[in-house]
């Protein structure tokens, strides 16, 4: 009985294969985009966790200097001889060709076992080779691939290391980093002897740093991943519109079957259970398909994501996608939950279906004016919430709440707005066909409104994100011009070489500007502090957002400090505020500068002050001012004179190109997701039109009978779809603008710490508009073609059939 009833229910799908395909495809696509984002995020998180776990940073405490400066090796010996079980680590950035490497030097004999990720005594490494020159670099396989051909010590592979990290002996690392006798931190063995002499008496400059429970990377990149997740959800929501439409239609078409089944004695509860079972089967099927598809999408997108994370945050993400059970589970759960949610109202109607209801005309696509108004009211309410979230709320979550409420509210408002517009158009239309066209379009609205809402979301997201990225690009390019004012950027191989080079350059260039920095702890957080030499370069070009009148003089005098926008926003700093540097020195904020592309806090002081605070600052990097036409020649001379590798002297154009490349890749993912979302929306329209096509026949047949050719009707059908799409596009413009504003003025500020001026790109919208018109036309084309191909006998059935 149950089985029979179930097959009766399922037989519907055999007769409506296209409908089934649409349902599955919609659900699969929605799940796919969401899973893709999840897979990417999971992969990134895995990489961060691996990075955090490098030499046990997530589990073991360490001793570091209060001021963040390197620790002298003697201090290490003193601590060991006092009985402290500590192990020295040096960490630094190493440049090989165009790549960067985070080099971690360990001391394998004292390293606590909890911190030993790599077994140095393994056959393929060996302690002797590891610690004696030239030493070994242990790296992840993909890092090895990236380093292939570079002049590094011999490489050994270990899967345990995150990409971009190289492990070596501390002695080897000190030499590679040109920091002999220096130690970045001392790892504390978890168990120490009792009765040790206190730290204050042996090394008062050191403090204990607790294990990093959450890695810096995952905190920094949080906003980026939140962004991705938001897009994933948007795509999922758009996909659910398709599902909702397909399920609704199937229900309506099966209403007689359902009634008959009940009349034949199937209990109501069994019927509901069967319906739910059917939905579960379908959604699981689509879910599996979707997650698999999602991995495909993720695999395609991951390299870009990895590149932008590397460029933006210096975060290394494994380019190899690993299958994560959590992504599968979540993807499937979401598919099932989404399906059940979209089907809830239909299930409810099954449960309350009157057994002996009179045969009704198919009314499901008809929506009462009252319902329209109610929905619009809900939409208005959401818009109000969105506005409130911006005004009252703060933080990234409030930003996304506002964003979500705004999009959903606008989508809910759309049917009413379109209905009004179409009514107006109908009133203005002259000919009988025109009038009928608008009237009929308006009547189609409820059946298409879900798909149109999906389209609105996709278009608005495209327009908004497009405006955001475009604004960002314009601002960023302008800012790069200001910021990268020097003609050459030089990295010496040692402080001594740098000193030599600078005196060599003194007579050959207009100016040599140091790019020296040290880490300071300001307001409890590590801040990279740069020393500025007073020069016209800065006075004329530096991108100051706010500045005291005598900013450069006060900086030069050593009393002022500049902070970047992100730091000012995060710490609520304003001009005139005082900041305390190491040694208790107090500095007045005399300027705030924009610092795009850098998520971290940064500050600038006079070079003399920096040298006074940190006499042993790394002096390897500096910039050179020279007439632009002489820059290339000077670079060549410099390379020759010091036998400098090409990469150590970079000209302005290369730095800019590099920065822009990072920028472009950062938003490549967003763009890709956007296009995919638009694709899903187009599919939603297609699915809706296709499923409506059957129903349309009954509405079109009388018109045809009264003397309109099928060809004309088909053309009108295509035009109708395009009209709806273009109205939706028009509606999407203000929504897109609002979205762009929210992204630029709210989300960006929270996520990255910088605010950007908004620019508008009407050409983009034109392109987007034509894109949506084309997709609407294409979506309508197949049903229209079917209509033209109809046999008259099929049409007259409409009149002959009893219903």
């Amino acid at each position, binding site marked *: 009985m149950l089985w029979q009833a179930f097959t009766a229910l399922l037989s519907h799908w055999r007769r409506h294969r296209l409908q089934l395909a649409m349902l599955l495809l919609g659900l699969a696509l929605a799940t796919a985009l969401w899973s893709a984002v999840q897979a990417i995020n999971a992969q990134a998180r895995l990489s961060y966790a691996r990075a955090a776990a490098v030499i046990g940073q997530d589990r073991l405490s360490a001793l570091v200097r209060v001021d963040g400066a390197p620790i002298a090796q003697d201090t290490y010996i003193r601590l060991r*001889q006092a009985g402290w079980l500590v192990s020295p680590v040096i960490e630094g950035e190493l440049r090989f060709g165009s790549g960067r490497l985070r080099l971690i030097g360990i001391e394998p*004999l004292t390293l606590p076992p909890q911190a030993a990720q790599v077994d140095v005594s393994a056959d393929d490494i060996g*302690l002797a080779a590891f610690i004696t020159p030239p030493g070994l670099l242990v790296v992840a396989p993909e890092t090895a691939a990236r380093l292939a051909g570079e002049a590094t010590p011999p490489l050994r592979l270990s899967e345990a290391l995150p990409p971009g990290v190289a492990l070596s002996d501390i002695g080897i690392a000190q030499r590679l980093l040109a920091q002999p006798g220096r130690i970045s931190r001392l790892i504390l063995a978890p168990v120490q002897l*009792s009765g040790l002499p206190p730290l204050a008496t042996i090394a008062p400059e050191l403090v204990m740093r607790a294990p990093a429970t959450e890695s810096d990377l995952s905190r920094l990149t949080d906003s980026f991943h939140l962004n991705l997740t938001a897009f994933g959800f948007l795509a999922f929501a758009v996909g659910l519109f398709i599902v909702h439409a397909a399920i609704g239609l199937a229900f309506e078409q099966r209403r007689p079957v359902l009634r008959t089944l009940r009349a034949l004695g199937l209990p109501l509860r069994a019927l509901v259970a069967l319906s739910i079972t059917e939905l579960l089967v379908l959604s699981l099927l689509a879910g599996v398909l979707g997650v698999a598809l999602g991995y495909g999408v993720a695999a395609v997108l991951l390299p870009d994501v990895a590149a932008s994370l590397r460029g933006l945050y210096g975060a290394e993400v494994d380019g190899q996608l690993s299958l994560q059970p959590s992504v599968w589970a979540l993807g499937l759960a979401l598919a099932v939950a989404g399906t059940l949610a979209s089907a809830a109202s239909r299930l409810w109607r099954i449960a309350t279906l009157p057994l002996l209801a009179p045969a009704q005309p198919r009314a499901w696509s008809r929506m009462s004016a009252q319902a329209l108004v109610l929905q619009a009211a809900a939409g208005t309410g959401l818009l109000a919430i969105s506005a409130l979230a911006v005004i009252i709320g703060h933080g990234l979550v409030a930003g996304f709440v506002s964003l979500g409420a705004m999009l959903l509210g606008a989508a809910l408002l759309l049917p009413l707005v379109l209905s009004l517009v179409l009514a107006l158009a109908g009133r203005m239309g002259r000919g009988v066909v025109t009038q009928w066209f608008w009237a009929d379009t308006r009547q189609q609205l409820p059946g298409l409104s879900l798909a149109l809402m999906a389209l609105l979301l996709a278009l608005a997201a495209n327009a908004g994100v497009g405006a955001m990225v475009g604004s960002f690009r314009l601002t960023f390019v302008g800012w790069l011009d200001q910021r990268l004012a020097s003609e050459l950027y030089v990295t010496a191989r040692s402080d001594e070489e740098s000193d030599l080079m600078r005196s060599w350059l003194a007579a050959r260039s207009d100016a040599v500007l140091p790019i020296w920095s040290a880490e300071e702890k300001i307001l409890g957080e590590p801040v990279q502090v740069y020393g500025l030499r007073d020069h016209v370069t800065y006075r004329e070009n530096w991108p100051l957002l706010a500045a005291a009148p005598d900013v450069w003089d006060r900086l030069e005098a050593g009393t002022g400090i500049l902070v970047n926008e992100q730091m000012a926003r995060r710490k609520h700093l304003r001009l005139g505020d005082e900041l305390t540097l190491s040694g208790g020195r107090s500095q007045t904020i005399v300027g705030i500068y924009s610092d795009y592309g850098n998520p971290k806090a940064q500050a600038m002081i006079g070079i003399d002050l920096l040298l006074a605070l940190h006499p042993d600052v790394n002096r390897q990097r500096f910039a050179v001012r020279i007439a632009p036409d002489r820059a290339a020649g000077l670079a060549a001379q410099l390379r020759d004179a010091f036998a400098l590798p090409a990469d150590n002297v970079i000209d302005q154009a290369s730095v800019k190109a590099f920065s822009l490349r990072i920028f472009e890749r950062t938003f490549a993912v967003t763009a890709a997701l956007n296009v995919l979302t638009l694709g899903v929306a187009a599919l939603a329209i297609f699915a809706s039109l296709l499923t409506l096509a059957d129903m349309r026949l009954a509405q079109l047949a009388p018109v045809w009978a009264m003397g309109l050719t099928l060809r004309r009707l088909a053309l009108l059908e295509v035009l109708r779809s395009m009209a709806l799409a273009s109205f939706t596009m028009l509606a999407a413009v203000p929504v897109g603008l609002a979205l762009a504003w929210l992204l630029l003025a709210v989300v960006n500020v929270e996520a990255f710490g910088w605010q950007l001026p908004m620019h508008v790109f009407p050409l983009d919208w034109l392109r987007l508009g034509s894109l949506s018109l084309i997709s609407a036309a294409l979506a309508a084309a197949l049903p229209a073609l079917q209509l033209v191909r109809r046999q008259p006998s099929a049409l007259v059935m409409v009149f002959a059939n009893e219903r």
Partner: protein
Amino acid sequence: MNVRWVLLFLLAIAAPALAQGFAGLGTSAEGFAMPQKAHPPVFPGDHGAHPDYRVEWWYLTANLTGEDGRDYGAQWTLFRFALAPGTGESWQTPQLWMGHAAVTTPDQHVSAERLARGGIGQAGVVLTPFSANIDSWRMDSRAGPDSDPMSALDVSAAGAGFAYRLGLTATGPLVLHGDRGYSVKSAQGQASYYYSQPFYAVKGTLTLDGRDIAVTGQAWFDHEWSSQPLGADQSGWDWFSFHFDTGEKLMGFRLRDEGAGFTSGTWIGADGQVEPLPPGALTAEPLEWAEVRGRTVPIRWKLSLPFRGLDITTRALNDAAWMDTQVSYWEGPVRIEGSHPGRGYVEMTGY
């Protein structure tokens, strides 16, 4: 002393080409120096480190009696391993150091281990004034300028749950083993430089679980260095250092192999008179075995040296004197019964 487990250690953490044989005249294939019979140790210079030799150790074992009347044992050892002969600058120095320390009571055996790189000052041996250390573990001479640096030592170490500070004063001369310090370790002729100071009177303090115990007793110091691995078929090593109540001392070892093994040793008179034992003169047989940390080791031995009328058995103060270090072995104090009662230390490796 056992060379084999030292080599195991090297194998475990360094794995240099161990299998390389000998290159005959005084140096190994890797450029390590070899002990020469013709060049006996010279003091005080040879108390220090010999970085051109592959392995070396300064080894102290003490049989102690507490103020509470109980027996105790203490061990302090500093090992040196060279990945390559010679020294280098800072971290590039191919010398590795390892410290072992232990305290044994009738019901407890606690041990600790320290590892360090040479060249950076974390561990090493300095000659004038003599001082050996790894981390906070120290062995410092307090002998006057005219006497042998080893004639008076302060030794200290600390590990989880234990610490000790011992003052050592020699009551007899240094003892050279084998042929004036040239000690043969196998029938194939592998040899090391080996001397001892077995005549220490000890006074000091043990700290166990925060409780101080004043102790007195006897101690035995060994210093040995070599470059040669054991023969391929030698599987382990039993080593004995005995203080007899008569004031006489015995150092003996048995290298186990597939055959009868190789035994040798030194009989030391109460006055420090040395009598090297020819191979095979000393016999040592396990009498009783026990399970310690999953291994079966002899805990009672029967030793005899017929021409001295020696016929003794040993009984471990604590059967579970297992050194829980990277390369683990049994090392603990024993009581001696039979013809020559006394106390001593036994080390057993390769079980």
